[in-house]
């Protein structure tokens, strides 16, 4: 026999007409309510922090992680490593221009070297990761702002099951020009060769585009994939 739930709904009646204020039975929302009663097994709560490099969308990264059920906080990029307890870190984007004001990236280098958890660098975070580990980042020949098409060249863990090309929103004056040793590129656009990169053996990832904004296709899936990476890393 199929699983069955009994749903008790109290009708709220309008004071004057005596009719239900809300038609529960024909309302789609009420069906979602019923579905929500099948609770999944209690998941492992992951704690992934967002390192604030001053980006316009730092807070969006926090929101997406929270929406996906992760415990998250935004922390200053000057937070000493020993005060950080996390299963993963996101290095946000920001106004600092790589090469011009590296010091504004705070202790991001420390985190990359010593945090020992998966790290996802986004935009400035991605560019910083590249330069810090021996690659090169600098002004883009053609900077990208707003809606662009990104082609996924290698699915890897981060883009598992996603379409080969997708709409991604960008906002960058600089980009990764040369990857650091042991990194591979995972995606590109017409104007930017390295839209995504990862280390071949360590859990270090970088994205030039912004998966955290509403207008980027499949952004939530990419964050979920990063959460899964953090979870697998924690269990291993």
């Amino acid at each position, binding site marked *: 026999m199929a699983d069955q739930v009994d749903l008790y709904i109290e009708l709220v009646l309008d004071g004057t007409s005596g009719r239900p204020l809300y038609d529960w039975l024909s309302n789609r929302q009420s069906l979602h309510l019923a579905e929500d009663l099948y609770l999944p097994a209690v998941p492992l709560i992951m704690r992934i922090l967002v390192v*604030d*490099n*001053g*980006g*316009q*969308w*730092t*807070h*969006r990264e926090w*929101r997406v992680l*929270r*929406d996906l059920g992760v415990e998250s906080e935004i922390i200053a*990029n000057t937070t000493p490593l020993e005060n950080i307890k996390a299963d993963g870190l996101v290095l946000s984007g*920001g*106004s*600092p221009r790589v090469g011009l004001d590296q010091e*504004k990236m705070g202790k991001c280098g420390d985190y990359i070297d010593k945090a020992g958890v998966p790290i996802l660098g986004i935009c400035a975070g991605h560019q910083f990761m590249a330069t810090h580990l021996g690659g090169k980042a600098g002004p883009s020949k053609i900077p990208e*702002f*707003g*809606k662009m098409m990104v082609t996924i060249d290698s699915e890897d863990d981060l883009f598992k099951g996603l379409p080969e090309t997708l709409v991604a*929103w*960008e*906002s960058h004056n600089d980009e990764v020009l040369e990857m650091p040793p042991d990194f591979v590129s995972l995606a590109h656009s017409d104007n930017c060769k390295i839209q995504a990169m990862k280390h071949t053996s360590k859990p270090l990832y970088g994205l030039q585009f912004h998966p955290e*904004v*509403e*207008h980027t296709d499949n952004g939530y899936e990419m964050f979920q994939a990063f959460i899964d990476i953090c979870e697998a890393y924690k269990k291993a």
Partner: protein
Amino acid sequence: MFNADKFIEEETARLEREVKGKAIIGASGGVDSTVCAAIVGKALGERLLAVYVDTGFMRKGETANVDKMLRRLGVNHIVVDASDEYFTALKGVIEPETKRKIIGEKFIRVFEREAKKFGAEYLVQGTIAPDWIESGGGIRDTIKSHHNVGGLPKDLNLILVEPLRDLYKDEVRKVARALKIEVAEKQPFPGPALAIRIMGEPTRESVEIVREACAIAEEEIEKAAAAGKMKLPWQYFAVLLPVRSVGVQGDIRAYGYTIAVRAVDSVDAMTANYSKIPHDVLEQISIRITNKMKDKVNRVVYDVTNKPPSTIEWE
């Protein structure tokens, strides 16, 4: 996912715990400040006074409508006409950041006056995430100073309370629906109001042009959406440009100003794409604006830029 009921419960409890005396709230009649007034009103009751400031830059019929809406909401409120003060303070000002800061400071001065009369020591604002993000500070660049953040004077003598600080508009709307607030779906409207839809000096004359243009754009777009011709955009309005161009009206040369129509789709205002409005709707807006204001405006253009690289408002 964001849980509106839980948010209302937790915030109300927190406000009851933390706000001990009287408070005033800056209420524009928009979604953010109305939700805020409802939640704070739940916690404070008669100890809250909502203050609506008529800056002189409000849209057509706005002050009267908001007055009625706040009455229906059941929160203590007053309407303050400060338009003379605003026009005087903005005389000759064209730089967008200066405009925003002057307007922000003026709001606070009005709030301080009203707080004193009411005996309030707290100032509640409906500040949401994009307001403080875009206002910048620290390592974050200032995109634009939102009046409720970047416009705050250093010598503010009221304690700020901002319950919606971490929410985006889509989340505020969820809270608004949970509270059955009538303006839940109202389009966003910036605090500096029409003053930042005039690319130039905000005067009584220029605000009249953009007020009429905004009313026509809103009316036509809402009518088309209601008729199923298009989806109602997230935000839609008109902007008065200082650019003049040549036209011909009744076989006579004209030399008038330009109105830009702007409509965007967004979820949280942090990214936006321009709305694909049908051409016949745009044409109707153009015809009405150029006929109604033939002495002032003889050209209408449509803005086809996304955010980024542009922002939703022009200033």
